[in-house]
């Protein structure tokens, strides 16, 4: 041991610079990636400062006037604030209640399929929409649901029913988004649960069969408890992401008729900031959203750690 210690302290003593010179090629490999994070992730963080300015593109950040929290006050006293909060939470909660349980149910069903071929065929089909862009999903929705020439309305008309306003009905807009999310992601969501189920000891099922448990009881008493940890962790994480409603999805499905229920933080920032050029105000809105999101994720993570042994970060 005595022979080792001086060597160890010697290895620790060279300064950072010395070790960078020694392993310079290793650091050169890291350089492009590090530059990426520096330029495209950290540099914009300086831009947050314009939320506290009256930023003018002509004057630049250096010369624009500082106004403190004025934009935040304007936002919080604006009725838009309540609307955005309600819509964001509403869409998120719809997802939580209607979407979240589905992958669990779906994977329970898939887990019971005996024919490997049938199972894989079903999986191939229900995973596919995950890889399609929101532009495609929105386009498909329009083709199926539009009032004038959507397939479903064509059929309703052909059978003598009234045509339905699926796309411009503010009462159904959140549900429409949720159904889209389900179609796109519910199948993909089963992967995690199926993997957890694959880890269940088959002897447990055998023992349960000996005790006379039928399929449903086996599901309830063996499969579900086996994936409970995964469910809890994913649920908590989902709660941390509650400020995140897919920008592209909402933006693409948005139209004048549903503006009251379809505007969320991100689409608002885009419309007011990029389209109307109110850079400072919309940066303040974006910053508010990011900060609340960060707090929620950190809170959710500490909760997840309390439940699961591993935690997330």
């Amino acid at each position, binding site marked *: 041991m005595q022979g080792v210690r001086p060597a160890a302290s010697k290895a620790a003593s060279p300064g950072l610079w010395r070790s960078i010179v020694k392993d310079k090629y290793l650091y050169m490999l*890291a350089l492009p990636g590090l530059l990426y994070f520096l330029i495209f992730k950290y*540099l914009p963080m300086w*831009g947050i400062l314009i939320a506290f300015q009256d930023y003018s593109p002509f004057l630049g950040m250096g010369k624009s006037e500082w106004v403190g929290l004025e934009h935040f006050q304007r936002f919080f006293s604006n009725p838009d604030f309540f609307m955005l909060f309600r819509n964001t939470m509403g869409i998120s909660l719809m997802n939580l209640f209607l979407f979240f349980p589905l992958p669990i149910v779906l994977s329970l069903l898939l887990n019971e*399929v005996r024919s490997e071929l049938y199972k894989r065929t079903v999986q191939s089909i229900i995973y596919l929409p995950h*890889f399609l862009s929101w532009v495609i999903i929105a386009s498909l929705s329009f083709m199926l649901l539009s009032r004038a020439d959507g397939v479903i309305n064509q059929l309703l008309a052909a059978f003598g029913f009234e045509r339905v306003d699926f796309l411009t009905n503010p009462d159904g807009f959140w549900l429409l988004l949720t159904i889209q999310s389900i179609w796109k992601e519910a199948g993909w969501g089963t992967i995690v649960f199926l993997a957890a189920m694959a880890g269940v000891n088959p002897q447990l099922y055998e023992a349960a069969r000996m005790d006379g448990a039928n399929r449903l009881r086996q599901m309830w008493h063996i499969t579900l408890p086996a994936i409970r940890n995964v469910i809890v962790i994913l649920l908590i994480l989902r709660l941390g992401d509650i400020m995140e409603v897919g920008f592209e999805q909402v933006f693409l499905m948005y139209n004048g008729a549903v503006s009251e229920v379809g505007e969320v933080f*991100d689409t608002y920032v885009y419309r007011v*900031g990029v389209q109307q050029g109110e850079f400072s105000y*919309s940066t303040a809105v974006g910053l508010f959203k990011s900060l609340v999101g960060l707090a929620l994720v*950190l809170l959710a993570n500490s909760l997840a750690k309390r439940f699961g042994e591993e935690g997330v970060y």
Partner: protein
Amino acid sequence: MPSKRLGDRGFQMANAAVLGLLSIVTAFPLYYVFVVSFTDPIEYLQKPLVLFPERWSLASYSYLLSTPAFPKALGVSAFLATVGTACSLIVTSALAFTLSRRRMRGRRLIQLCILFTILFGPGIIPNYLLIKELSLINSIWSVILVSLTSGWYVILMRGFYDGIPEELDEAAAIDGCNDIASFFRIILPLSLPALAAFGLFFAVSFWNQYFNALLYLNDSDKWPIQVLLQNMLIDASSSSLGEVDPLMKPPPSETLKMAAVVIAIAPIVAVYPFLQKHFAKGAMVGSIKG
């Protein structure tokens, strides 16, 4: 016992039926779009619902491909998907590899900084202003550069490189390779399965690029396929395809739209079988999150 076996049988069949129905519901929109895109325009106009066309036709496809805008947009997206993916893979794997090496000083701090970018973003406007400052507005490189990599990918890939022992680097060093040479000659060939999985994910995400292109590319000549589709299908602006040969009679806009959707989905469906081999594993790594 027999009654229980019968109950089991019934359960199996009901289960298979429910899953079959779900698969049909999932597949129907795609099937319908595919079929209508190949349907003879006149037949389409006559029927309320075409489930299997009597007369097939390529009219919509040949019309689309004869427009100036559509092939151009396909080219832009193909460029994004190939060049973007290659750049992403090299940058991501190189950074992830170095972060997995214990002799890399400061790697914990770097990882913490990378993790922070996942949790907090400055928002749309500061990003937009940065691209403007860099004079990258209207440059296709802006779309590649902003989504070159992400904290998740770096951290996931680092997990993969953790499994490659550092003794391998030492052996390469003894053989006279510096780290860059040994990365390209030894480490990258060893990580082919990971490169395939991540490469396919990158390629799909570049092919699907919409929002960044919308933000940074105002010039319609540089639009990728997703932005053109949005203009054509959702905004229904007829001019988005550009001037077409006046002698060519356009097919009904519906079959045209469906053909456009089919072309935009085709590359995804083409790589899907390869994707499938890898994605369950990829998604699992993602679910554990670092």
